[in-house]
């Protein structure tokens, strides 16, 4: 089988059968790439996962693009990305077409009255997790609070807050570097 087709079909399979979003895909991707296809080493794939989270966008797409690129260059990257997107795209179009027919039924309203509660719970859980790993000192706690107030009460676009977070990180790096340089000069 040609490598491009193999990349496409591997990621198509993963996209088709993983429930729970991009993060849920990582163990399956690891198994397929490291254990079954032996395209990539275990340490290497961990570095790829880290790199995929350092750039914006859906984790699944980032990982597919990185792995495809690593294994077979630009074309490989394209085929892997297409593979991971296509199942979602087709399934959602089918579901959306069906859902728009039945959306007004009372049964749908009743079921969603429950699902909405479940979704709020899932979002809160993912928020707790991110807060626990992201809030580590006074500055990060302040960033968290500022974001909550700005987005919920003031309607500020999330993009500005992402940029603010990045700017604070940049500033901290600059200060850290200056300090280490001064410490170095003092020796």
């Amino acid at each position, binding site marked *: 089988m040609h490598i491009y087709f193999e990349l496409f079909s591997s990621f198509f399979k993963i*996209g088709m059968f*993983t429930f729970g*979003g991009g993060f849920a*895909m990582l163990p399956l991707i690891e198994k397929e790439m490291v254990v079954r296809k032996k395209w990539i080493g275990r340490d290497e794939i961990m*570095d790829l996962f880290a790199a995929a*989270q*350092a*750039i*914006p*966008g*859906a*984790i*699944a*797409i980032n990982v597919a693009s*990185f792995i495809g690129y690593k294994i077979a260059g630009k074309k490989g*990257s394209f085929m892997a*990305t297409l593979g*991971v*997107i296509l199942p*979602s*795209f087709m*399934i*959602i*179009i089918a*579901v*959306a077409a069906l*859902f728009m027919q039945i959306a007004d039924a*009372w049964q749908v*309203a009743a079921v*969603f*009255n*429950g*699902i*909405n*509660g*479940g*979704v*709020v719970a*899932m*979002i809160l*859980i993912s*928020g707790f997790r991110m807060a626990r790993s*992201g*809030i*580590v000192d006074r500055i990060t706690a302040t*960033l*968290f609070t500022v*974001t909550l107030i700005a*987005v*919920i009460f003031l309607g500020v*676009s*999330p*993009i500005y807050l*992402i940029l603010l977070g*990045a*700017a604070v*990180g*940049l500033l*901290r*790096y600059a200060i850290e570097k200056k300090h280490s340089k001064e410490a170095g000069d003092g020796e």
Partner: protein
Amino acid sequence: MILVQLFASFFKIGLFSFGGGYAMISLIADEIFKYQWLSQSEFVRIIGIAGMTPGPIAINSATFVGYKMAGFAGAFFATLGVSMPSFFLVLALAGTLFRHADHPLLIQILKGMKPVVAGLIFAAAVTVGKSTLAEFNVNGGLHLNWPTIAIAVIVLTLSLRTKVHPILLIVFSGILGFAAHFLTGISIG
């Protein structure tokens, strides 16, 4: 025109979202309510469905919103928009990131963005919760949707205490919602 707008909005969402699907909800909500593409309750339902179907939540919600707004072409351009920044950033940065994923500058920037992402996820919970757990009726009174609140608390507890797969929990919450309809005997939704 709507196709260009869908593409541009989801491109922006793809370019500025860090931290996975749920963190993206705040960004999607911001775009959708700005253009008044969907009502709150329509948006919340799409998030529910995007979380239950296979694949990345980002792609699922982009495809769904696009389809709802402009059919197949809308779905295509929204999905293309949300995927393109990732793809081209990877092509541009692959070599550098493979070597410098642990560079202190990158680590500091990600450390600065993480609490923001956490805040955005809680803001998404508020956006979704505002239109589902409670509603304001025409004369300004607050009506609490007790069945949905109870289901949220049950799912939250199960998720923290057990290892049941999140998707099963969402399916379970749908069944509870259906049952609650008969238990409470009031027309809801």
